[in-house]
């Protein structure tokens, strides 16, 4: 019943870097091993997204993938961005990495990473940002690794892109990281190709590649969706473990509320390209205030609690080409009749504090959503 990476490699070896490898940039600002759950005050945010909008002009019209998105994420914290397909969760994370093709994307607003504005950077400057201070791991490790290059080659390339390191230094760095992410015989496996690894091991390789330059911000886009559940548990543990060591900020994109419950400090729920609810994980999953979050909770067949009949959200998600007027969720919302004057169809609610708790916000016109949750939704949950 032991973690397989266990103590195989001394974690400090990586954090401080072997002698041959340049040390991580700047001192660590976060005390290791201390993880408090809950939304943090702004202040020392490492990532700040303000009023971000991402649109793609197409032949059929403009796809408004993300609109008016704002949040911040301090070092050492994990923010989970939750939503279904088309909610804008992946598009916004790609924007933070500067991965959208500037020719086919319209971006407005601001993304500050470590105090630096990302929007408007030249491709040359973006390149230093990508894989340097910010790194990303993707959903499918099978297709995300190049099939024709060895894993060592791919990790070393990432290191050498940001460090003036010799091949030997880069190789040593790659071996150290492969060991750190729990790959046995790292020095030997460095020269293997991705297809010689299992799915879980491939995702470990991806994580090693992302961490090779000591990023302060790690974006994980559905990193366990393609994996089996026992392997998923290993990878989630690894990400949490590494975060404690590196003290980095983790932006975790997922559709799985179970994963959110296990890994996140804060949660941002997205629907139709906008944030609809934001706050600490305990408050968002324990007593959500937005009918969409309620619907999600009532849709999930959990492994715990009484198995009751699911209560799904009717209809399907809106088209990003033509969002409904007013609140995007209103056509599917069973509570819109509780708001007078058809306000839901007319006016887009703000993402604002709706109860006494200022640390959380939701985008809904309902007046006492907390009471409604307790009296109407909670009894229906398993």
């Amino acid at each position, binding site marked *: 019943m032991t973690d397989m990476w266990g103590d195989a490699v001394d974690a400090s070896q990586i954090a401080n870097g072997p002698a041959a490898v340049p040390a991580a940039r700047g001192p660590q600002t976060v005390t290791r091993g201390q993880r408090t759950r809950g939304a943090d005050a702004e202040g020392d945010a490492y990532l700040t997204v303000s009023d971000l909008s991402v649109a793609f002009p197409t032949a059929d019209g403009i796809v408004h993938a993300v609109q008016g998105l704002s949040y911040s994420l301090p070092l050492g914290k994990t923010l989970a961005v939750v939503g279904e397909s088309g909610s804008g969760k992946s598009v916004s994370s790609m924007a933070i990495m500067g*991965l959208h093709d500037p020719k086919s994307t319209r971006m407005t607003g601001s993304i500050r990473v470590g105090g630096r504005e990302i929007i408007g950077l030249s491709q040359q400057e973006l390149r230093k940002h990508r*894989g340097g201070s910010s*790194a*990303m791991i*993707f959903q499918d490790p099978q297709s995300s*690794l190049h*099939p*024709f290059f060895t894993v060592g080659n791919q990790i070393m390339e*990432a290191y050498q892109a*940001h460090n003036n390191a010799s091949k030997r230094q880069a190789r040593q760095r790659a071996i150290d990281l492969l060991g750190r992410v729990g790959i046995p015989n790292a020095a030997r496996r460095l020269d293997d190709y991705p297809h010689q690894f299992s799915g879980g091991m491939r995702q470990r390789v991806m994580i090693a590649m992302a961490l090779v330059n000591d990023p302060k911000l790690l974006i994980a886009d559905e990193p366990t969706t393609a994996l089996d559940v026992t392997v998923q548990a290993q990878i989630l543990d690894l990400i949490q473990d590494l975060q404690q060591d590196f003290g980095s900020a983790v932006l975790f994109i997922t559709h799985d509320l179970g994963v959110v419950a296990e890994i996140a400090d804060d949660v941002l729920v997205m629907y139709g390209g906008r944030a609809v609810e934001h706050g600490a994980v305990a408050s968002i999953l324990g007593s959500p205030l937005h009918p969409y979050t309620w619907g999600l909770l009532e849709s999930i067949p959990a492994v715990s609690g009484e198995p009751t009949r699911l209560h799904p959200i009717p209809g399907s998600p809106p088209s990003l080409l033509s969002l409904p007027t007013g609140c995007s969720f209103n056509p599917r919302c069973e509570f819109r009749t509780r708001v007078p004057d058809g306000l839901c169809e007319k006016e887009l609610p703000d993402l604002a504090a709706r109860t006494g708790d200022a640390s959380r916000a939701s985008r809904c016109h309902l007046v006492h959503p907390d009471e409604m949750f307790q009296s109407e939704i909670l009894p229906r949950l398993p």
Partner: protein
Amino acid sequence: MVLYILRRIASAISVIVVTLIASFGLFYLAPSDPAGVICGAKCPPARYQEIADSLHLDRPVYQQIWEYLHGLVLGTDVVSGGQTVHCAAPCLGYSYVFGVPVTTLIMHALPVTISIVFGSAIAYLCIGTLSGIFAARRRGTYLDRTIVGGTLTIGSVPYFVVALLAALYIPTLIPIVPQAKWVPLTESPLKWFLGLLLPWIVLGIVNSASYTRYSRASMIESLSEDYVRTARAKGISERRVVYRHGLRAAVTPLATIFGLDVAFALTGAIFTEQIFGLPGLGVVTLRAFDKYDLPVLMAGVLIGAVVLVIMNLLVDILYTILDPRVRLS
């Protein structure tokens, strides 16, 4: 890996032998009268008999094939023009029409064809791949559409029309490019080069159209792969993303098409050789067909089979080198 190649070579040899026997059967045992065709309409019976004898038409089939194979591997004695001559291995027989060993004919024609095919292949591979990558990176723009449109236009004009027009106009309009003329490389490299420049240009342009489309499609596919996104996320330069990560994956399917194209070009450069008056393999085979010069025809078929089989083999081996998933499984 070594076992794999050995197995492929063994199967390649068996393919060649089967082709050989099958075509031998078709040519020599067809319900036609080869001796009569060779001799012509007003054939004196003595001459007819001599030809029939030299063809060994009276012997059983298996013996004829055996003799052919024997000559191919060890050499044999052949009756030509009433004399018995030794024909050294690999003996492909004597041409009825020219009265010289087929091997000699081939040895003269083969360098011409090889020069034309490989020279133009380098040209269209370079032009086609580069413009394909260029278009793929600008997918959807006017430049891209212009390139695709251009390749479609070139591709829709019959090849011999382009070649004929080029042969007529280019030497007059661009005086640096002389009329096509065959000069062996060993004689004068410069004259060899200049003499082949025109067919290279024509073949290069015509074939690069399809290579532009292949490589464009292949690049668009590989550039949309997840691992290219991963490469970008690493922060490496866009040039490196495209040429190292994108092209590396796009090259594998291209190599397959290229290998087979070259094989077909080697066996079918007839148009080019005929139009530009170059004495290559295609012209020789065509003339042999005209005169029913059986040994030469057989040699043409044999070379075609060998070239196709070898190129196929090379492509497969190249494939295992290019793709570690094939190599290491």
